[in-house]
Protein backbone atom coordinates (compact mmCIF):
# COMPACT_ATOMS: atom_id res chain seq x y z
CA UNK A 1 0.00 0.00 0.00
CA UNK A 2 2.76 2.39 0.91
CA UNK A 3 4.47 1.68 -2.37
CA UNK A 4 1.27 2.77 -4.04
CA UNK A 5 1.28 5.99 -2.04
CA UNK A 6 4.91 6.62 -2.87
CA UNK A 7 4.31 6.17 -6.57
CA UNK A 8 1.38 8.54 -6.31
CA UNK A 9 3.51 11.22 -4.79
CA UNK A 10 6.66 10.62 -6.77
CA UNK A 11 5.16 10.38 -10.18
CA UNK A 12 1.68 11.83 -10.10
CA UNK A 13 1.23 14.10 -7.07
CA UNK A 14 -2.17 15.19 -8.34
CA UNK A 15 -3.82 11.91 -7.60
CA UNK A 16 -3.19 11.86 -3.89
CA UNK A 17 -6.93 11.77 -3.33
CA UNK A 18 -6.98 8.46 -5.17
CA UNK A 19 -4.36 7.19 -2.74
CA UNK A 20 -6.62 8.03 0.18
CA UNK A 21 -9.43 6.20 -1.56
CA UNK A 22 -7.15 3.19 -1.85
CA UNK A 23 -6.54 3.26 1.89
CA UNK A 24 -10.25 3.44 2.46
CA UNK A 25 -10.82 0.45 0.19
CA UNK A 26 -8.41 -1.54 2.32
CA UNK A 27 -10.46 -0.65 5.35
CA UNK A 28 -13.62 -1.73 3.56
CA UNK A 29 -11.90 -5.02 2.93
CA UNK A 30 -11.47 -5.25 6.67
CA UNK A 31 -15.20 -5.16 7.28
CA UNK A 32 -16.15 -8.28 5.38
CA UNK A 33 -17.46 -11.24 7.30
CA UNK A 34 -17.30 -14.99 7.12
CA UNK A 35 -20.50 -15.79 9.02
CA UNK A 36 -22.79 -17.50 6.61
CA UNK A 37 -26.51 -17.90 7.29
CA UNK A 38 -26.41 -20.84 4.88
CA UNK A 39 -24.32 -22.68 7.45
CA UNK A 40 -26.87 -21.89 10.14
CA UNK A 41 -29.64 -23.27 7.95
CA UNK A 42 -27.57 -26.37 7.22
CA UNK A 43 -26.73 -27.17 10.82
CA UNK A 44 -29.72 -25.82 12.72
CA UNK A 45 -27.18 -23.92 14.80
CA UNK A 46 -27.22 -20.21 15.45
CA UNK A 47 -24.46 -17.97 14.08
CA UNK A 48 -23.45 -17.42 17.71
CA UNK A 49 -22.58 -21.09 18.13
CA UNK A 50 -19.64 -20.78 15.73
CA UNK A 51 -18.79 -17.12 16.33
CA UNK A 52 -18.21 -15.31 19.60
CA UNK A 53 -20.19 -12.40 18.14
CA UNK A 54 -23.56 -13.31 16.74
CA UNK A 55 -22.76 -11.78 13.34
CA UNK A 56 -19.43 -13.49 12.94
CA UNK A 57 -16.00 -12.06 12.78
CA UNK A 58 -14.13 -12.20 9.54
CA UNK A 59 -12.60 -8.82 8.87
CA UNK A 60 -12.69 -7.64 12.40
CA UNK A 61 -14.56 -8.36 15.56
CA UNK A 62 -14.93 -11.62 17.40
CA UNK A 63 -13.26 -14.80 16.29
CA UNK A 64 -14.50 -18.35 15.83
CA UNK A 65 -15.47 -20.36 18.87
CA UNK A 66 -13.91 -23.82 19.23
CA UNK A 67 -17.16 -25.23 17.83
CA UNK A 68 -16.79 -22.99 14.78
CA UNK A 69 -13.22 -24.21 14.34
CA UNK A 70 -14.44 -27.81 14.33
CA UNK A 71 -17.09 -26.95 11.76
CA UNK A 72 -14.39 -25.55 9.51
CA UNK A 73 -12.14 -28.55 10.10
CA UNK A 74 -15.02 -30.85 9.20
CA UNK A 75 -15.08 -29.23 5.79
CA UNK A 76 -18.27 -27.23 6.36
CA UNK A 77 -20.17 -30.53 6.12
CA UNK A 78 -21.81 -30.81 9.56
CA UNK A 79 -25.58 -30.92 9.32
CA UNK A 80 -28.76 -31.37 11.31
CA UNK A 81 -29.73 -34.12 8.84
CA UNK A 82 -33.03 -32.39 8.32
CA UNK A 83 -33.32 -32.36 4.55
CA UNK A 84 -31.26 -30.77 1.82
CA UNK A 85 -30.48 -27.08 2.24
CA UNK A 86 -29.55 -24.68 -0.53
CA UNK A 87 -25.96 -23.59 0.17
CA UNK A 88 -26.46 -19.97 -0.82
CA UNK A 89 -26.34 -16.79 1.26
CA UNK A 90 -25.98 -13.08 0.68
CA UNK A 91 -24.75 -9.97 2.40
CA UNK A 92 -25.16 -6.24 1.85
CA UNK A 93 -23.00 -3.60 3.51
CA UNK A 94 -23.71 0.11 3.63
CA UNK A 95 -20.79 2.25 4.78
CA UNK A 96 -20.41 5.81 5.94
CA UNK A 97 -16.77 6.73 5.48
CA UNK A 98 -15.39 9.80 7.20
CA UNK A 99 -11.68 10.04 6.34
CA UNK A 100 -9.42 12.45 8.20
CA UNK A 101 -8.78 14.10 4.85
CA UNK A 102 -11.16 14.16 1.95
CA UNK A 103 -14.89 14.02 1.57
CA UNK A 104 -17.15 11.85 3.64
CA UNK A 105 -19.38 9.48 1.75
CA UNK A 106 -22.17 7.03 2.34
CA UNK A 107 -22.60 4.20 -0.13
CA UNK A 108 -23.69 0.64 -0.51
CA UNK A 109 -20.10 -0.51 -0.54
CA UNK A 110 -20.40 -4.24 -0.91
CA UNK A 111 -22.84 -6.88 -2.07
CA UNK A 112 -21.77 -10.47 -1.54
CA UNK A 113 -22.94 -13.82 -2.75
CA UNK A 114 -21.85 -16.89 -0.85
CA UNK A 115 -21.94 -20.43 -2.13
CA UNK A 116 -21.25 -22.14 1.13
CA UNK A 117 -22.11 -25.45 2.66
CA UNK A 118 -22.02 -29.18 2.20
CA UNK A 119 -22.32 -31.12 -0.99
CA UNK A 120 -21.86 -34.54 0.55
CA UNK A 121 -20.85 -35.84 3.95
CA UNK A 122 -17.23 -35.47 2.85
CA UNK A 123 -17.27 -32.48 0.51
CA UNK A 124 -18.08 -28.92 1.44
CA UNK A 125 -16.88 -25.45 0.83
CA UNK A 126 -16.94 -21.70 0.99
CA UNK A 127 -16.95 -19.45 -2.05
CA UNK A 128 -17.51 -15.73 -1.87
CA UNK A 129 -18.20 -13.47 -4.82
CA UNK A 130 -18.27 -9.81 -3.96
CA UNK A 131 -19.32 -6.69 -5.82
CA UNK A 132 -17.38 -3.77 -4.40
CA UNK A 133 -18.33 -0.16 -4.87
CA UNK A 134 -15.94 1.43 -7.35
CA UNK A 135 -17.32 4.97 -7.34
CA UNK A 136 -19.74 6.77 -9.62
CA UNK A 137 -22.49 4.23 -8.92
CA UNK A 138 -20.46 1.38 -10.38
CA UNK A 139 -19.47 -1.92 -8.84
CA UNK A 140 -16.60 -4.26 -9.53
CA UNK A 141 -17.29 -7.96 -9.18
CA UNK A 142 -14.52 -10.17 -7.83
CA UNK A 143 -14.10 -13.78 -6.87
CA UNK A 144 -13.07 -13.44 -3.25
CA UNK A 145 -12.03 -16.28 -0.96
CA UNK A 146 -12.55 -19.89 -1.87
CA UNK A 147 -12.02 -22.90 0.35
CA UNK A 148 -13.19 -26.21 -1.09
CA UNK A 149 -12.69 -29.26 1.08
CA UNK A 150 -12.69 -33.00 1.07
CA UNK A 151 -12.63 -34.44 4.56
CA UNK A 152 -12.42 -37.89 6.11
CA UNK A 153 -13.89 -37.83 9.60
CA UNK A 154 -14.01 -40.32 12.44
CA UNK A 155 -10.67 -41.93 11.60
CA UNK A 156 -8.53 -43.54 14.27
CA UNK A 157 -4.76 -43.47 14.74
CA UNK A 158 -3.22 -45.23 17.72
CA UNK A 159 -6.70 -45.34 19.21
CA UNK A 160 -7.09 -41.56 19.01
CA UNK A 161 -9.49 -39.53 16.88
CA UNK A 162 -8.14 -38.31 13.57
CA UNK A 163 -9.66 -36.00 10.97
CA UNK A 164 -7.91 -35.68 7.63
CA UNK A 165 -8.76 -33.33 4.82
CA UNK A 166 -7.70 -31.53 1.68
CA UNK A 167 -8.38 -27.84 1.14
CA UNK A 168 -8.20 -26.11 -2.22
CA UNK A 169 -8.02 -22.40 -1.47
CA UNK A 170 -6.72 -19.11 -2.81
CA UNK A 171 -5.05 -17.46 0.20
CA UNK A 172 -2.35 -19.12 2.31
CA UNK A 173 -3.76 -19.20 5.83
CA UNK A 174 -7.37 -18.46 4.95
CA UNK A 175 -8.37 -22.05 5.66
CA UNK A 176 -6.74 -22.08 9.07
CA UNK A 177 -9.13 -23.28 11.79
CA UNK A 178 -7.87 -20.95 14.51
CA UNK A 179 -8.44 -18.14 12.04
CA UNK A 180 -6.06 -15.51 13.39
CA UNK A 181 -3.49 -15.58 10.59
CA UNK A 182 -3.61 -12.44 8.42
CA UNK A 183 -5.40 -14.14 5.51
CA UNK A 184 -8.15 -15.42 7.79
CA UNK A 185 -8.95 -12.12 9.48
CA UNK A 186 -8.23 -9.54 6.76
CA UNK A 187 -6.63 -7.52 9.49
CA UNK A 188 -2.94 -7.45 8.78
CA UNK A 189 -0.78 -4.42 9.36
CA UNK A 190 -1.35 -1.96 6.58
CA UNK A 191 2.04 -2.74 5.13
CA UNK A 192 5.13 -0.71 4.60
CA UNK A 193 6.79 0.11 1.31
CA UNK A 194 7.06 -1.82 -1.91
CA UNK A 195 5.97 -5.40 -1.64
CA UNK A 196 5.76 -5.33 2.15
CA UNK A 197 4.85 -6.43 4.85
CA UNK A 198 5.29 -10.13 4.72
CA UNK A 199 3.99 -12.37 1.97
CA UNK A 200 1.54 -13.94 4.44
CA UNK A 201 0.12 -10.53 5.28
CA UNK A 202 -2.96 -9.97 3.19
CA UNK A 203 -2.73 -6.22 3.68
CA UNK A 204 0.64 -6.05 1.93
CA UNK A 205 0.86 -4.70 -1.55
CA UNK A 206 1.02 -7.51 -4.12
CA UNK A 207 -0.06 -10.04 -1.52
CA UNK A 208 -1.13 -13.50 -2.69
CA UNK A 209 -4.66 -13.11 -1.31
CA UNK A 210 -7.25 -14.34 -3.81
CA UNK A 211 -4.70 -14.33 -6.65
CA UNK A 212 -3.12 -17.72 -6.08
CA UNK A 213 -4.47 -21.23 -6.06
CA UNK A 214 -3.17 -24.01 -3.90
CA UNK A 215 -3.91 -27.23 -2.12
CA UNK A 216 -3.11 -28.24 1.41
CA UNK A 217 -3.48 -31.50 3.27
CA UNK A 218 -4.44 -31.13 6.90
CA UNK A 219 -5.11 -33.30 9.88
CA UNK A 220 -6.39 -32.95 13.42
CA UNK A 221 -5.07 -35.61 15.78
CA UNK A 222 -6.53 -36.38 19.18
CA UNK A 223 -8.70 -33.22 19.00
CA UNK A 224 -5.76 -31.01 19.91
CA UNK A 225 -2.94 -31.32 17.38
CA UNK A 226 -3.33 -29.63 14.03
CA UNK A 227 -0.97 -29.97 11.09
CA UNK A 228 -1.15 -28.75 7.50
CA UNK A 229 1.20 -28.75 4.51
CA UNK A 230 0.61 -27.54 1.00
CA UNK A 231 1.72 -25.58 -2.00
CA UNK A 232 0.49 -22.62 -4.06
CA UNK A 233 0.89 -21.18 -7.53
CA UNK A 234 -0.04 -17.69 -8.62
CA UNK A 235 -2.83 -17.32 -11.13
CA UNK A 236 -1.90 -15.98 -14.57
CA UNK A 237 -2.46 -12.25 -14.78
CA UNK A 238 -5.12 -12.82 -17.45
CA UNK A 239 -7.04 -15.02 -15.02
CA UNK A 240 -6.68 -12.44 -12.25
CA UNK A 241 -8.12 -9.91 -14.66
CA UNK A 242 -11.04 -12.20 -15.50
CA UNK A 243 -11.70 -12.70 -11.78
CA UNK A 244 -11.99 -8.97 -11.28
CA UNK A 245 -8.55 -8.06 -10.00
CA UNK A 246 -6.31 -5.26 -11.18
CA UNK A 247 -3.08 -6.50 -12.73
CA UNK A 248 -1.14 -3.93 -10.68
CA UNK A 249 -1.74 -6.05 -7.58
CA UNK A 250 -0.28 -9.19 -9.15
CA UNK A 251 1.70 -11.09 -6.49
CA UNK A 252 4.16 -12.05 -9.24
CA UNK A 253 5.09 -15.45 -10.54
CA UNK A 254 5.70 -17.72 -7.59
CA UNK A 255 7.31 -21.14 -7.74
CA UNK A 256 8.72 -23.81 -5.41
CA UNK A 257 6.18 -22.66 -2.84
CA UNK A 258 5.75 -24.60 0.36
CA UNK A 259 3.36 -23.85 3.21
CA UNK A 260 3.08 -25.44 6.62
CA UNK A 261 1.09 -24.87 9.74
CA UNK A 262 1.21 -26.67 13.07
CA UNK A 263 -0.77 -25.81 16.16
CA UNK A 264 -1.79 -27.12 19.52
CA UNK A 265 -5.35 -26.13 20.28
CA UNK A 266 -7.10 -26.96 23.53
CA UNK A 267 -10.83 -26.66 24.01
CA UNK A 268 -11.65 -26.54 27.71
CA UNK A 269 -15.32 -25.65 27.00
CA UNK A 270 -15.27 -22.54 29.17
CA UNK A 271 -11.84 -21.55 27.88
CA UNK A 272 -9.72 -22.16 24.82
CA UNK A 273 -6.09 -21.59 24.05
CA UNK A 274 -3.78 -22.33 21.16
CA UNK A 275 -0.15 -21.99 20.18
CA UNK A 276 0.93 -22.39 16.60
CA UNK A 277 3.64 -21.85 14.05
CA UNK A 278 3.30 -21.08 10.36
CA UNK A 279 5.79 -21.01 7.54
CA UNK A 280 5.92 -20.29 3.84
CA UNK A 281 8.78 -20.32 1.40
CA UNK A 282 8.64 -19.28 -2.23
CA UNK A 283 10.58 -17.90 -5.17
CA UNK A 284 8.85 -14.85 -6.53
CA UNK A 285 9.38 -12.95 -9.77
CA UNK A 286 7.84 -9.51 -9.50
CA UNK A 287 7.57 -8.33 -12.22
CA UNK A 288 7.10 -11.74 -13.80
CA UNK A 289 9.90 -11.31 -16.29
CA UNK A 290 12.28 -10.07 -13.62
CA UNK A 291 14.76 -11.86 -11.37
CA UNK A 292 13.44 -14.13 -8.63
CA UNK A 293 13.47 -13.19 -4.97
CA UNK A 294 13.59 -15.91 -2.32
CA UNK A 295 11.05 -15.25 0.42
CA UNK A 296 10.86 -17.26 3.63
CA UNK A 297 8.16 -16.49 6.19
CA UNK A 298 8.18 -17.99 9.67
CA UNK A 299 5.72 -16.98 12.32
CA UNK A 300 4.03 -17.96 15.52
CA UNK A 301 0.69 -17.14 17.07
CA UNK A 302 -0.89 -17.41 20.49
CA UNK A 303 -4.58 -17.18 21.30
CA UNK A 304 -6.74 -17.34 24.39
CA UNK A 305 -10.49 -17.26 24.75
CA UNK A 306 -12.56 -16.99 27.89
CA UNK A 307 -15.97 -18.27 26.90
CA UNK A 308 -17.65 -19.10 30.21
CA UNK A 309 -21.41 -19.28 29.77
CA UNK A 310 -21.10 -17.10 26.64
CA UNK A 311 -22.39 -13.99 28.43
CA UNK A 312 -18.96 -12.37 28.66
CA UNK A 313 -16.43 -13.53 26.08
CA UNK A 314 -12.86 -12.29 25.92
CA UNK A 315 -10.59 -13.22 23.03
CA UNK A 316 -6.93 -12.32 22.75
CA UNK A 317 -4.65 -13.15 19.86
CA UNK A 318 -1.08 -12.33 18.98
CA UNK A 319 0.54 -13.08 15.62
CA UNK A 320 4.22 -12.53 14.86
CA UNK A 321 5.60 -13.23 11.38
CA UNK A 322 9.18 -12.69 10.25
CA UNK A 323 10.09 -12.76 6.58
CA UNK A 324 13.62 -13.20 5.28
CA UNK A 325 14.26 -12.02 1.74
CA UNK A 326 17.11 -12.81 -0.60
CA UNK A 327 16.67 -10.53 -3.56
CA UNK A 328 17.44 -11.61 -7.10
CA UNK A 329 18.82 -8.21 -8.03
CA UNK A 330 20.32 -5.15 -6.40
CA UNK A 331 19.10 -2.18 -8.42
CA UNK A 332 20.67 1.25 -8.31
CA UNK A 333 18.55 4.14 -7.10
CA UNK A 334 17.09 6.09 -10.05
CA UNK A 335 17.30 9.23 -7.89
CA UNK A 336 20.79 8.81 -6.42
CA UNK A 337 23.09 6.50 -8.44
CA UNK A 338 25.42 6.18 -5.46
CA UNK A 339 22.76 4.15 -3.66
CA UNK A 340 22.45 0.42 -4.35
CA UNK A 341 19.73 -1.84 -2.97
CA UNK A 342 20.68 -4.41 -0.36
CA UNK A 343 20.89 -8.05 -1.49
CA UNK A 344 19.00 -9.27 1.59
CA UNK A 345 16.39 -7.94 3.94
CA UNK A 346 13.85 -8.85 6.56
CA UNK A 347 10.27 -7.80 7.23
CA UNK A 348 8.34 -8.24 10.41
CA UNK A 349 4.58 -8.13 11.05
CA UNK A 350 2.93 -8.18 14.45
CA UNK A 351 -0.78 -8.12 15.28
CA UNK A 352 -2.25 -7.96 18.76
CA UNK A 353 -6.02 -8.08 19.11
CA UNK A 354 -8.30 -7.96 22.13
CA UNK A 355 -12.04 -8.43 21.78
CA UNK A 356 -14.76 -8.36 24.41
CA UNK A 357 -18.27 -9.51 23.57
CA UNK A 358 -21.29 -9.16 25.86
CA UNK A 359 -24.18 -11.54 25.35
CA UNK A 360 -22.67 -12.24 21.94
CA UNK A 361 -24.40 -9.08 20.70
CA UNK A 362 -22.40 -6.10 21.94
CA UNK A 363 -18.68 -5.92 21.47
CA UNK A 364 -15.54 -3.90 21.29
CA UNK A 365 -12.26 -4.74 19.62
CA UNK A 366 -8.87 -3.12 20.01
CA UNK A 367 -6.06 -4.07 17.67
CA UNK A 368 -2.47 -2.98 17.36
CA UNK A 369 -0.86 -3.59 13.97
CA UNK A 370 2.81 -3.12 13.37
CA UNK A 371 5.02 -3.74 10.38
CA UNK A 372 8.71 -2.97 10.08
CA UNK A 373 11.76 -4.15 8.20
CA UNK A 374 15.36 -3.72 7.19
CA UNK A 375 16.21 -0.19 6.10
CA UNK A 376 16.84 -0.05 2.35
CA UNK A 377 17.16 3.37 0.77
CA UNK A 378 16.47 2.09 -2.75
CA UNK A 379 13.62 -0.33 -2.19
CA UNK A 380 11.70 1.71 0.37
CA UNK A 381 11.30 5.34 -0.55
CA UNK A 382 11.19 8.05 0.47
CA UNK A 383 13.05 7.34 3.72
CA UNK A 384 14.24 3.80 3.18
CA UNK A 385 12.02 2.54 5.99
CA UNK A 386 9.05 0.25 5.51
CA UNK A 387 7.77 0.71 9.06
CA UNK A 388 4.08 1.25 9.70
CA UNK A 389 2.10 1.29 12.92
CA UNK A 390 -1.67 1.42 13.13
CA UNK A 391 -4.51 0.78 15.53
CA UNK A 392 -8.06 -0.31 15.01
CA UNK A 393 -10.94 0.35 17.39
CA UNK A 394 -14.32 -1.16 16.70
CA UNK A 395 -17.60 -1.24 18.56
CA UNK A 396 -20.48 -3.28 17.20
CA UNK A 397 -24.00 -4.45 17.83
CA UNK A 398 -25.40 -7.66 16.37
CA UNK A 399 -28.95 -8.14 17.68
CA UNK A 400 -29.78 -11.40 15.90
CA UNK A 401 -27.98 -14.64 15.11
CA UNK A 402 -28.57 -16.20 18.51
CA UNK A 403 -30.84 -19.06 19.40
CA UNK A 404 -33.25 -16.84 21.32
CA UNK A 405 -33.18 -14.08 18.70
CA UNK A 406 -36.09 -13.03 16.54
CA UNK A 407 -34.27 -15.00 13.87
CA UNK A 408 -31.10 -17.00 14.18
CA UNK A 409 -30.45 -17.56 10.50
CA UNK A 410 -30.51 -14.00 9.17
CA UNK A 411 -28.49 -11.25 10.70
CA UNK A 412 -27.73 -7.58 11.14
CA UNK A 413 -24.61 -5.81 12.37
CA UNK A 414 -24.00 -2.16 13.06
CA UNK A 415 -20.38 -1.24 13.63
CA UNK A 416 -18.26 1.84 14.09
CA UNK A 417 -14.56 1.53 13.35
CA UNK A 418 -11.75 4.00 13.78
CA UNK A 419 -8.59 3.14 11.88
CA UNK A 420 -5.64 5.15 13.10
CA UNK A 421 -2.09 5.38 11.72
CA UNK A 422 0.71 6.57 13.99
CA UNK A 423 3.67 5.75 11.74
CA UNK A 424 3.93 5.45 8.00
CA UNK A 425 6.96 4.99 5.79
CA UNK A 426 8.95 4.84 9.00
CA UNK A 427 8.16 8.40 10.05
CA UNK A 428 5.56 10.32 11.97
CA UNK A 429 5.47 13.41 9.75
CA UNK A 430 5.76 14.22 6.06
CA UNK A 431 5.23 10.56 5.29
CA UNK A 432 5.60 11.01 1.53
CA UNK A 433 8.78 13.07 1.81
CA UNK A 434 7.55 16.07 -0.15
CA UNK A 435 9.96 19.03 -0.43
CA UNK A 436 9.76 22.14 1.70
CA UNK A 437 6.97 24.46 0.74
CA UNK A 438 4.61 21.61 -0.22
CA UNK A 439 1.87 20.61 2.16
CA UNK A 440 3.00 17.56 4.11
CA UNK A 441 1.00 14.52 5.09
CA UNK A 442 1.04 13.06 8.57
CA UNK A 443 0.17 9.45 9.39
CA UNK A 444 -3.00 10.71 11.05
CA UNK A 445 -4.14 12.13 7.73
CA UNK A 446 -4.73 8.53 6.64
CA UNK A 447 -7.05 7.85 9.56
CA UNK A 448 -10.66 7.09 8.87
CA UNK A 449 -13.86 6.63 10.81
CA UNK A 450 -16.30 4.16 9.36
CA UNK A 451 -19.85 3.31 10.29
CA UNK A 452 -21.17 0.17 8.65
CA UNK A 453 -24.53 -1.53 8.54
CA UNK A 454 -24.45 -5.09 7.28
CA UNK A 455 -27.25 -7.55 6.69
CA UNK A 456 -26.75 -11.22 5.94
CA UNK A 457 -29.47 -13.59 4.82
Amino acid sequence: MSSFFSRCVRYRPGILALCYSFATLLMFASTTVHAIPAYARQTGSACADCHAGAYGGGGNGPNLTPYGMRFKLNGYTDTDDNGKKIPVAGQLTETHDAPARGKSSTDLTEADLYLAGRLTDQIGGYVKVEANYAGNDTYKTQLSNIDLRFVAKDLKLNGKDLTMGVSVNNSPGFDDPIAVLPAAVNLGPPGGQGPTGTFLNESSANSPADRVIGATVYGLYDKDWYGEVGTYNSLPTSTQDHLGYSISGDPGKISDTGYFRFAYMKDLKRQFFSAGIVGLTTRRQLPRTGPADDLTDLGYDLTYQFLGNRENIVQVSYVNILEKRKYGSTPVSPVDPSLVALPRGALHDENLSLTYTFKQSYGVQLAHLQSNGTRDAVRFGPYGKPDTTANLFTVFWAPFGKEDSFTSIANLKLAATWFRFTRFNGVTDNIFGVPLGVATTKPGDLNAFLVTASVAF
Partner: protein
Amino acid sequence: MPKLFLGLSAAALVLGCALASRFAHAADATVGADVFKSECAECHSPKEGRNKKGPSLFGIVGRKAASLPDYKYSDALRGRTDWVWTPEKLHGYLSQPAKQTNPGTKMKYDGLTDAKDLDDLISYLGTLH
Protein backbone atom coordinates in the same frame (compact mmCIF):
# COMPACT_ATOMS: atom_id res chain seq x y z
CA MET B 1 -31.66 -53.99 72.90
CA PRO B 2 -33.91 -54.63 69.91
CA LYS B 3 -35.69 -51.37 70.71
CA LEU B 4 -32.39 -49.53 70.78
CA PHE B 5 -31.40 -51.09 67.44
CA LEU B 6 -34.77 -50.17 65.99
CA GLY B 7 -34.41 -46.62 67.28
CA LEU B 8 -30.93 -46.22 65.84
CA SER B 9 -32.09 -47.64 62.52
CA ALA B 10 -34.98 -45.20 62.41
CA ALA B 11 -32.66 -42.31 63.26
CA ALA B 12 -30.23 -43.42 60.56
CA LEU B 13 -33.07 -43.63 58.08
CA VAL B 14 -34.32 -40.14 58.93
CA LEU B 15 -30.78 -38.79 58.77
CA GLY B 16 -30.19 -40.55 55.46
CA CYS B 17 -33.38 -39.14 53.99
CA ALA B 18 -32.45 -35.70 55.23
CA LEU B 19 -28.99 -35.97 53.68
CA ALA B 20 -30.41 -37.35 50.43
CA SER B 21 -32.89 -34.51 50.32
CA ARG B 22 -30.11 -32.03 51.00
CA PHE B 23 -28.02 -33.62 48.26
CA ALA B 24 -30.91 -33.44 45.84
CA HIS B 25 -31.48 -29.79 46.60
CA ALA B 26 -27.75 -29.10 46.28
CA ALA B 27 -28.09 -29.49 42.52
CA ASP B 28 -28.70 -26.00 41.19
CA ALA B 29 -30.64 -25.72 37.94
CA THR B 30 -29.59 -22.10 37.52
CA VAL B 31 -25.95 -23.11 37.60
CA GLY B 32 -26.88 -26.04 35.41
CA ALA B 33 -28.15 -23.62 32.76
CA ASP B 34 -24.65 -22.19 32.53
CA VAL B 35 -23.16 -25.69 32.36
CA PHE B 36 -25.59 -26.42 29.54
CA LYS B 37 -24.44 -23.33 27.63
CA SER B 38 -20.78 -24.31 27.82
CA GLU B 39 -21.14 -28.08 27.45
CA CYS B 40 -24.24 -28.79 25.37
CA ALA B 41 -25.75 -25.74 23.67
CA GLU B 42 -23.62 -25.87 20.53
CA CYS B 43 -25.20 -29.16 19.50
CA HIS B 44 -28.48 -29.19 21.44
CA SER B 45 -31.27 -26.68 21.85
CA PRO B 46 -33.44 -26.47 24.97
CA LYS B 47 -36.29 -25.29 22.77
CA GLU B 48 -39.11 -27.58 21.79
CA GLY B 49 -38.94 -28.72 18.19
CA ARG B 50 -35.53 -27.24 17.47
CA ASN B 51 -32.95 -29.78 16.45
CA LYS B 52 -29.33 -28.91 15.77
CA LYS B 53 -26.57 -31.44 15.18
CA GLY B 54 -28.15 -33.15 18.14
CA PRO B 55 -31.85 -33.43 19.00
CA SER B 56 -33.78 -30.90 21.07
CA LEU B 57 -33.42 -31.53 24.79
CA PHE B 58 -36.80 -30.08 25.62
CA GLY B 59 -38.53 -32.65 27.79
CA ILE B 60 -35.48 -34.89 27.77
CA VAL B 61 -35.86 -36.11 31.34
CA GLY B 62 -38.26 -39.04 31.24
CA ARG B 63 -38.20 -39.27 27.46
CA LYS B 64 -37.64 -42.56 25.68
CA ALA B 65 -34.31 -42.67 23.82
CA ALA B 66 -34.39 -41.87 20.10
CA SER B 67 -38.05 -40.93 20.26
CA LEU B 68 -38.25 -37.51 18.56
CA PRO B 69 -39.98 -38.10 15.24
CA ASP B 70 -38.25 -35.26 13.35
CA TYR B 71 -34.66 -36.08 14.27
CA LYS B 72 -32.48 -38.60 12.48
CA TYR B 73 -30.88 -40.65 15.21
CA SER B 74 -27.97 -43.02 14.76
CA ASP B 75 -28.74 -46.69 14.43
CA ALA B 76 -26.79 -47.17 17.63
CA LEU B 77 -29.23 -45.09 19.65
CA ARG B 78 -32.32 -46.30 17.86
CA GLY B 79 -31.28 -49.79 18.89
CA ARG B 80 -31.52 -48.81 22.55
CA THR B 81 -35.23 -49.42 22.72
CA ASP B 82 -35.07 -50.00 26.46
CA TRP B 83 -33.41 -46.69 27.31
CA VAL B 84 -35.37 -43.97 29.04
CA TRP B 85 -33.58 -40.76 29.93
CA THR B 86 -34.13 -40.80 33.67
CA PRO B 87 -31.84 -38.62 35.81
CA GLU B 88 -29.93 -41.73 36.74
CA LYS B 89 -29.54 -42.78 33.11
CA LEU B 90 -28.44 -39.30 32.12
CA HIS B 91 -25.96 -39.29 34.97
CA GLY B 92 -24.37 -42.49 33.76
CA TYR B 93 -24.47 -41.48 30.11
CA LEU B 94 -23.04 -38.01 30.51
CA SER B 95 -20.32 -38.89 32.98
CA GLN B 96 -18.26 -40.75 30.39
CA PRO B 97 -17.49 -40.55 26.67
CA ALA B 98 -20.68 -41.04 24.66
CA LYS B 99 -18.98 -43.47 22.31
CA GLN B 100 -18.13 -45.62 25.31
CA THR B 101 -21.67 -45.94 26.61
CA ASN B 102 -23.22 -46.18 23.17
CA PRO B 103 -20.69 -47.29 20.53
CA GLY B 104 -21.69 -46.02 17.12
CA THR B 105 -23.49 -42.94 18.39
CA LYS B 106 -23.26 -39.69 16.44
CA MET B 107 -22.75 -37.80 19.67
CA LYS B 108 -19.20 -36.59 20.15
CA TYR B 109 -18.86 -35.88 23.82
CA ASP B 110 -16.05 -36.79 26.16
CA GLY B 111 -18.18 -36.71 29.27
CA LEU B 112 -18.56 -34.36 32.20
CA THR B 113 -16.29 -35.44 35.01
CA ASP B 114 -17.15 -32.70 37.50
CA ALA B 115 -19.82 -34.30 39.68
CA LYS B 116 -21.31 -30.99 40.83
CA ASP B 117 -21.56 -29.69 37.28
CA LEU B 118 -23.21 -32.92 36.23
CA ASP B 119 -25.79 -32.75 39.03
CA ASP B 120 -26.52 -29.12 38.20
CA LEU B 121 -26.83 -29.91 34.51
CA ILE B 122 -29.27 -32.77 35.06
CA SER B 123 -31.23 -30.58 37.44
CA TYR B 124 -31.47 -27.96 34.67
CA LEU B 125 -32.47 -30.54 32.09
CA GLY B 126 -35.29 -31.49 34.43
CA THR B 127 -36.70 -27.97 34.11
CA LEU B 128 -37.05 -28.21 30.33
CA HIS B 129 -40.76 -28.92 30.15
